[in-house]
């Protein structure tokens, strides 16, 4: 377990020195700082009375502040979910190809680390990275609004964590692709495909009526059955952030399916990695 943690820690350290992640960290911090300095929210007796952004009054009805914040949290959840996934696919595409680079992989394999530990450490390093990114962005935003409005909630952070684990499952597929061809482009393409196909898979019940009953519909159902339901999870994440009713058993089932997909991809990757020469 120590070796897995050591590999995950190294991936974290490597990410922190990459421009993509530095830019993301700086970007989130700047956005939060600008919002913190320019957004003014007046709350009177728990009701939102006035909101100013860059000194300009944003017109809205006087209503309970927690109700007024719901669409804001919903929008933020969607931005974090889809934006985070798109960013992750691009920014993390090079991790596995870099791990497998000549001169690096043979050095790592010559150390007292098992192959499965290397791959598992990389996978969990990316999972930790996506969770930290999600918590930093969503946590900062929630904290900012909490200070300005007095509404303290963990829901947007939980919603962002769903985005983080969804990305980790997609990254499992990207990792496998990199093991078959050491290419960041292929890894990113695989991530992009899983991202878009996962959006489609989330609406599979509604979309399968577009296919004629028979082989076409069965094929669509079979392919989308195994894919992570990205859009369903995004909707659940937004509902959770906006304090809308969430079917917890359905969400649990989706998350379980996500875990199965991610771990199955990791297991397949380990099987491939174990049989490779470098």
């Amino acid at each position: 377990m120590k070796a897995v943690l050591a590999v995950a820690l190294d991936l974290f350290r490597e990410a922190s020195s990459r421009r993509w992640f530095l830019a993301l960290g700086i970007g989130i911090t700047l956005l939060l700082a600008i919002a913190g300095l320019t957004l003014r929210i007046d709350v009177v007796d728990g009701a939102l009375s006035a909101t100013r952004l860059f000194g300009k009054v944003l017109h809205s009805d006087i209503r309970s502040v927690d109700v007024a914040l719901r669409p804001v949290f919903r929008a933020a959840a969607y931005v974090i979910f889809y934006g985070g996934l798109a960013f992750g696919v691009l920014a993390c595409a090079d991790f596995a190809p870099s791990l497998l680079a000549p001169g690096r992989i043979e050095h790592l394999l010559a150390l007292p680390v098992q192959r499965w530990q290397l791959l598992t450490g990389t996978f969990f390093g990316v999972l930790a990275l996506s969770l930290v990114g999600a918590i930093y962005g969503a946590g900062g935003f929630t904290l900012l609004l909490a200070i300005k409005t007095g509404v303290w909630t963990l829901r947007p952070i939980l919603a962002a964590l769903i985005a983080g684990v969804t990305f980790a499952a997609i990254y499992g597929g990207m990792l496998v692709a990199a093991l078959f061809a050491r290419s960041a482009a292929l890894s990113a393409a695989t991530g992009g495909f899983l991202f878009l196909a996962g959006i489609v898979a989330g609406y599979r019940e509604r979309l399968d009526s577009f296919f004629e009953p028979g082989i076409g519909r069965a094929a669509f159902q079979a392919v989308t059955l195994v894919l992570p339901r990205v859009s369903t999870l995004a909707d659940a994440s937004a509902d959770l952030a906006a304090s809308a009713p969430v079917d917890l058993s359905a969400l649990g089932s989706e998350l379980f399916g996500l875990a199965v997909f991610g771990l199955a991809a990791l297991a397949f990757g380990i099987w491939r990695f174990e049989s490779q020469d470098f």
Partner: protein
Amino acid sequence: MLAIQAVGLTKVYSSFFGKTRQTALAGLDLTIPVGSAFGLIGLNGAGKTTFIKSILGVVRPTSGTVRALGGDPEDAAIRARIGYLPERLHLPGAWTPVAFLSSVARLKGLGNAVETCRRHLGRVGLASDAERRIGGFSKGMRQRLGLAAALLGAPDLLVLDEPTDGVDPLGRAEIRRILAEERARGATIFLNSHLLAETERICDRIGILAKGRLVREGAIDELTGSATRYRARFAPGADAAALATIGFTARGGDDAFVCDAADPAALDALLTRARGAGALLVELRRDLRDLEEVLSEALGSPSIAGESS
């Protein structure tokens, strides 16, 4: 006890669909005792790197067996006792040497070993660069850092692939000194280098690999010299024809001759006869060849030539 043992080691690389096959190792047999310094030499594509990777478990043999330090290289406990410097070590440019070595130390199970890492950096001459980014390092500095990583944990077996590549002459001398210290500590050194002079200075045993097979193996003295052949130089004016009748063959055109003598008495008798023919001896030494000649001879031997045709 053996540090490395390969028996009938064969590695065949196949393409993805198995259409093309390339034999890198063809039934290699080799034993290297603990505590020795062994140099593997050969031409490009001879299978040297594949053999090194087999020792480390990075490449799985198609057939045959390879054991390192008496165990399976796939065993992490065995690999923990091996230090490895690859030919082209990929280093994270944004990291400092201390961060890189600390990472290697963690993966070697040495825990938080910052002080040890700094000590090893000092040992390879990088103490003043400990906090610099690796991205700004020269090739020689990268090699030194790679060597420091290999030395972490005081390994029993050091596998070094071109350790002095890109290192300046003084740096090479330092590396030779470090390797001598490691040997004195009891470590076995396995060296792969194209720099034959370096190999000759570091190693006491040599193996020559060609087409995946070991074509020569033995102590350097045995391979580079002959127990019965001597090189003599006489003062200018020696009668070459008279010396030839005694058993001296001219070599090199600087009044140098070679002769064969089974023992010191036979050698003394030959020299007495030479002196009797008017030749004045000014230099006498064992006739040693350099490794380049040994390599050329080994690769030009009928068995290799026959296979290449």
